[in-house]
């Protein structure tokens, strides 16, 4: 096999094929560490907060939130867009980087895809539970029904959301699961207990590592990558249309689709970095998820951060250039109105902070990257908050202008989705291989 010696190895530590299997399977086959238990307990506690606050909302009504007659969406849709955006990095890594044959993706794509799936689940909670009558949440599905000739409104961006998110979720899940099959088979083969053998065997779907198996695997992966690639662009485009197709100044903007996609990738990579910096140390995977990987991702963060920054500035310019007083006010209000702090948090976290990645030290120092990734996450949450709340709280008629602040229920739900996300992630890291063993073995430099 061709080896480009000028490239640095993607996996360090002189790992052999056996080492890979041993290293990656270790967390699955051994008892969880104390660190794992700690993280899992905190996450699970937060998950219970989620159950409690969502239960309270469903029991009492949306009135338990801080939303009001003018700002009818607050933290709920902010969180929705935030979580959907996070998912994007996973798809980008697994699909687009696969098509571009970026081999460095191999050690991170599994966890990135898992993150996608968990993030989309978290995201889906918000449009579902922000409904006044969540028990009728299936009505936006175009199901044949006994209500008469009731059908859904194909003009509504919310309906597009339903399709976009559900497609995205199914394809991502398939893609992730497909990639898992060979690794699950590995775990099955190494299994010592009957239960383990049965369950991993069940999910391995009879994988036997034959050439035919591999051929089919590669073909399907390529097809799914092809299907997923437009999804990377389409999902957040459609989410952005929730706002872009409305009449509200600050929402009604044609720049939203590319701006949202860039923002989604930005925030997604931010979250991947957060997770991987933790995972590589907690699970001892520094040799697989190397500083090289982190550096590559920081470059993406810097690029997309600058793109959203450009979008922010463009919006401002267009508002000024349009001559529309409502637009102009909406943007002036963002920067200098009562929510100025949210706007400037967004600007500094998203546009300014990632510029430190021009420096090599910043790109290669894991603890610093971790801090930066948190900053990116905060910034992107605020971006959505700024777009949603500052546009709604002061739109056309000043008589209806209001202020909005979240209640403990909304905060609890958001923290709760964090709990849901990390609980799922901890379980994933315990029961499934977090790095794609099969693929990583193909890029090992050292051979026996």
């Amino acid at each position: 096999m061709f080896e480009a010696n000028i490239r640095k190895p993607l996996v360090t530590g002189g790992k052999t094929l056996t080492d890979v299997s041993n290293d990656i399977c270790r967390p699955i086959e051994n008892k969880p560490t104390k660190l794992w238990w700690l993280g899992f307990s905190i996450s699970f506690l937060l998950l219970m907060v989620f159950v409690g606050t969502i239960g309270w909302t469903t029991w009492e009504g949306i009135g338990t939130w801080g939303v009001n007659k003018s700002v009818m969406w607050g933290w709920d849709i902010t969180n929705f867009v935030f979580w959907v955006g996070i998912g994007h990095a996973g798809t980008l890594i697994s699909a687009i980087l696969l098509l571009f044959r970026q081999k460095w993706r191999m050690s991170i794509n599994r966890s990135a895809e898992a993150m996608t799936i968990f993030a989309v689940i978290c995201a889906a909670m918000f449009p579902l539970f922000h409904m006044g009558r969540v028990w009728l949440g299936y009505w936006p599905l175009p199901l044949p029904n006994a209500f008469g000739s009731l059908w859904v409104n194909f003009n509504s961006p919310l309906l597009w959301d339903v399709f976009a998110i559900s497609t995205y979720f199914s394809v991502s899940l398939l893609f992730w699961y497909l990639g898992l099959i060979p690794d699950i088979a590995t775990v099955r083969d190494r299994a010592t207990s009957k239960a383990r053998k049965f369950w991993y065997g069940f999910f391995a779907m009879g994988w036997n590592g034959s050439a035919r198996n591999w051929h089919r695997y590669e073909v399907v992966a390529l097809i799914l990558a092809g299907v997923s690639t437009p999804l990377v662009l389409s999902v957040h485009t459609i989410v952005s249309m929730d706002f872009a197709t409305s009449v509200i100044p600050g929402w009604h903007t044609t720049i939203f689709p590319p701006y949202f996609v860039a923002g989604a990738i930005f925030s997604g990579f931010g979250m991947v970095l957060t997770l991987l910096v933790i995972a590589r140390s907690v699970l001892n995977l520094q040799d697989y998820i190397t500083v090289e990987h982190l550096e590559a991702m920081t470059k993406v963060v810097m690029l997309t951060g600058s793109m959203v920054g450009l979008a922010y500035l463009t919006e401002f310019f267009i508002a000024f250039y349009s001559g529309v007083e409502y637009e102009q006010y909406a943007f002036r209000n963002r920067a200098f109105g009562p929510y100025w702090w949210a706007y400037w948090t967004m600007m500094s976290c998203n546009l300014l902070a990632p510029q430190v990645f021009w420096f090599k030290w910043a790109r290669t120092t894991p603890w610093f990257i971790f801090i930066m990734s948190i900053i990116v996450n905060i910034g992107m949450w605020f971006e959505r908050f700024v777009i949603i709340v500052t546009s709604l709280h002061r739109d056309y008629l000043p008589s209806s202008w209001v202020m909005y602040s979240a209640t403990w229920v909304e905060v609890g739900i958001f923290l709760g989705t964090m709990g849901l996300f990390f609980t799922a992630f901890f379980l994933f890291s315990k029961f499934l291989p977090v790095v794609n063993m099969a693929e990583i073995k193909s890029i090992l430099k050292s051979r026996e």
Partner: protein
Amino acid sequence: MTNSNQYWKGLEEIETSLSSTTNQGEFGDEGLPLDEVFSDSEGLSSNRRDFLKYFGFSVSAVALAACNKAPVKYAVPYVEKPENVTPGVPLYYATNCGIYNEGYPIVAKVREGRPIKLDGNDRSPLANGGLSAAGQASILSLYDVHRLPNPVINGEEQEDWAEVDKAVKAALNGAGSKGIRIVTRTVSSPLLQNAINRFKEAYPNTEHVVYDPISYSGILQANEQSFGKKVIPNYHFDKAEVVVSFGADFLGTWVSPTRFAADYAQLRRPTEEDPTMSRHYQIEGLMSMTGSNADYRYPMNDSKHGLLLANLYNKIGGSVSVPSMDLPANALEKIAADLKSAKGKSLVVSSSNDVNVQVMVNAINDILGNYGSTINVGSNLNISAYDEASFNSFASDAGKGNIAAAIMIGVNPVYHHSKGGALAEALKSVGTVISTSMTMDETTEGAAIVAPDDHWLESWDVKEPVSGHYIFSQPVISKVFNTRSVIHSLYAWAGDDLAGDQPVMDLAKAYVTGMGASWKQSIHDGFYSKPVATEPAAFAANVSAAASSIASGSSSDVELVLYQKVGVLDGTWSLNPWCHELPDPVTKVAYDNYVTVAKRDADEVFKLENGDFVKVTTPNGTIDRLPVLIQPGQARGTIGIALGFGRKVNEQESNDLVDLGKNAYPLTSESNGSTSYVVSSGVSLEKVGSGYTFAQTQTHWSIEGRDTIREATLGEYENNPKVRNEHAPHIVSLWNEHDYSKGHHWGMAIDLNACNGCGSCVVSCSIENNVPIVGRDEIRRRREMHWIRIDRYYSFNSGGEALTKEKAIDAKVDGGEYDHYENVSTMHVPVMCQHCDNAPCETVCPVLATTHSTEGLNQMTYNRCIGTKYCGNNCPYKVRRFNWFRYNLNSKYNYHFNSELGRMVLNPDVTVRSRGVMEKCSFCVQNIQMAKLKAKRENRKLSDGDVTTACQRSCPTDAIVFGDRNDQNSRIAKLFNNNRSYKMLEETDVKPSVVYMTKIRNKEMEQETTTSHS
């Protein structure tokens, strides 16, 4: 709730002679043609082969009949159907609105025996179809859970009225040498007067004392001095081309506001053919609703009004010696000139309750020749005959123990009187206090015997609000509780055993026929007028004496003005959530009681901020703790507190109406023999806390210079009828328009010139459409549910340009200049769903819960709504309202939706929305449907005026017009083409179905530059 089945008792007792739509066949309920089939000559037994035919028919007929029935719980059919009563079809009865002591003609809408809506009686010259917000809200007092279900004797409920009569008679007969007193409001009912007279015959030691919560004795005494008649004259604002009001809130609370508003609006509508309108000057200390409608408004402390009036008197030709005084920019000169040029067609009024000031007002009106044209002393208003002196002697007699029995009829002086606390003590020395209050109030709590009066919607009565004009009250529901008309009670106590089921009806009938009127016609119309001879009034008061008394008065740096709020009024009926849920027309604060302070005083004198708590100290008493509201337009040196709050009843409950605000009546005092609502010296404020959040429905200060409201001067309008509307946006649409060429196309026009912001439409809409009451906390969270709101905007006249941008305002503040905070002009803009043709809400609903009708209505399907709230976000007018909670099952409240009794007021034609669905104005689609069915049944086309919306009907000034734009002759079609009409936010191309008509103020352009600096 013990006797809930009483509500249905005896519908047949209600005479249904009336202006109603009735009868069968309304909804095509002809039934199944069984007779035809079965009367077939051959009959059922004719043919074996027909068996299956008949069998099949019968089965399907039964099935069809079964399908026809809606699942209604607890619906009990009439065993014998009362005449004219068809379930589902409303009956309308002309009657009287009892929250106005003098009477106000209304029409009550009754569904299945329940009155559910009150509107002004549009045939009566006193109502013009409108009804105030408080009047609208008053229907809930019928279904008030706090009404006394039975008479009470010494704290024990007593079901038998005979026992009550026995106890009362025992008390009265044991009076001996001590006196008996009957305390009533001003008696505007001849029947009550007769009853009192009869009572006095039976008990000669009886004295009749009149007590009213709000005193107009300044006017009464002034008219006695001026014309020898102690009356409140009738004012005719419809003839007044120049109105000068010194603090009188005649559109909101002063004397007879609803009719004044209707009359006033008649001269406030310039048209292209006749571009004239009246001119209205308002000089006031507080910012009243009336002031907000003035063409020229001058902030000026109330205590200086007397001096100003005297100076005005001198300027129009009188001569008294007083210190010279003028308004900023010599405006008094201009007022005088305007008044002089409109002699006999002008009107000067004042809110002052000081006899000298009112004498001065009379003198001015006399010089101007207004008596006989805009003021009529011959035909007086029976608003108030309250004389402080006679009530004071009652109070002192009571305290001395000289009174054996006091019968309190519809009065609550313990709450309303300035010395209410002392009075409560004094009443303890009265042998027996008998109250006829419907509910437990502050005075009734001290009563040994409570003989609850009927609610006015349950009783017969005759009222005479204006001399020679009678209003008839008839029951529109059988008695809800075991109550008895006070008229009946007085006769019973006088020893008359009135015969018949409805003795008071017989009395009313005898009275009406005695006047020579037709009983049936009178009850049908609800009113009767007979000509009143008006004698010319000869002015004979000593103006100089009044002037010198005025000149000797002093004023200090801080004065307190006690005023009434629209909705709450004097507080008698203020235990009604609708009165409080309605935001104040000017401050837009709901529920709260507060101290209004001028901006300059707050900044520089008292160092206060909005929401700070203050202690108000006056020579008459103190109020410990009230929040401060900084009010633009208020004169520096004036602070204001609303009356009508701080009721001390039902305190064991914990809803928003309990312990609401502070009672400010104890701060009033008596001077010159009349109650003074201005405390002009010794007032101080002390900050005792901070951080109060008002339940305010509008909080943003500025309109940001947006072109959503339009206003021009009369001169501009004369020159260019399209003024402010010249520049229609150039809009290109990508889509095909809706096709409305067939059928109806509904639209609404709102005349901003006629709208005075009174809020009657808000309450009316809430009642008609079962809009929930959400309470103070929810309003604080900005979740009021009103389908129609009235946006209030201030603008600042400064240097000829209207400064509306925050920047410009702030620039002025920096210079220490507060004039623009005081010289504000105000706009009231009612906003409801605009029923856009390109409705942004419709496209975004994922489940098509909000759709467009072929008639241009934006419809809301509650059942389909899943509550994504996207429609609400995407509404440029922010008129959509979301049910954040189950407002219809709010455990915090015991009224309206939340009690068996309160639910009786619900309109059965309108769904009560559940939690989690969006709602909004429907253009009263239930009325559209009703009118269409009626027209169809009568086999005719809908004509203009058949369909009315609740807001339109309640509007005293006829500011709202609704109709079919496709009907070229309709009012609405013409208004849509009127040059004054514009569409709000037209540039967004949502194509609203509501047009607003530019507000025209009768002021001159150059005036603005001169008024800006005082």
